[in-house]
């Protein structure tokens, strides 16, 4: 049972480069989330999805894009990397619809450095 799988674990980008952070879950969860974690700031929601084909902005969406073509996958795209996007990124999933009081399951995180 893999749960939530994120790739890559670490990445260094140059300013202006683009990349996609991958996230996949095998629990048939409806809801998926992308958070970024910065020291002392907790987790801030970037984007979320309540099902395939449905995505919406969270608290800090600028500079990011997402898609949700399948229930399993929820990739996060950085188009023009900036130093402010240096952070640890966590993907999470949650059963959601019809069972909103369920906990979120997290991936192992991607540590991204933009230089």
């Amino acid at each position: 049972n893999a749960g939530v799988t994120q790739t890559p674990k670490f990445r260094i980008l140059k300013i202006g480069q683009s990349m996609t952070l991958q996230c996949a879950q095998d629990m048939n969860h409806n809801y998926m989330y992308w958070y970024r974690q910065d020291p002392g700031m907790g987790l801030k929601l970037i984007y979320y999805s309540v099902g395939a084909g449905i995505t919406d902005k969270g608290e800090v969406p600028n500079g990011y894009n997402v898609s949700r073509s399948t229930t399993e996958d929820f990739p996060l795209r950085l188009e023009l990397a900036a130093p402010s996007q240096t952070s640890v990124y966590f993907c999470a999933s949650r059963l959601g619809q019809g069972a909103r009081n369920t906990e979120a399951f997290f991936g192992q995180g991607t540590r991204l450095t933009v230089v």
Partner: protein
Amino acid sequence: AQSVSQHNHHVILSEAASLELGCNYSYGGTVNLFWYVQYPGQHLQLLLKYFSGDPLVKGIKGFEAEFIKSKFSFNLRKPSVQWSDTAEYFCAQGAGSYQLTFGKGTKLSVIP
């Protein structure tokens, strides 16, 4: 917008000391509350959760939390901490159909 406040940024305790980490939430409707733990270099893992019923919730590894609706609080407690409890602890609140809001976290350092 809902918010979650954690009172302490960093707590330092000796082994066997008792622990209480504060958490206050802002949403006034039906709430679902969680405590997560993040060990160094790892992802967040669920410690315990509250949806309804007995306001004293027991979780894994000897942790418990008490939901006090009148105070909008959900404090985490452990009677006797161990060095292995060194981690960062996050309180979170679920509200509405999808929202899951986290506090800023409290770092716990346990000195052997």
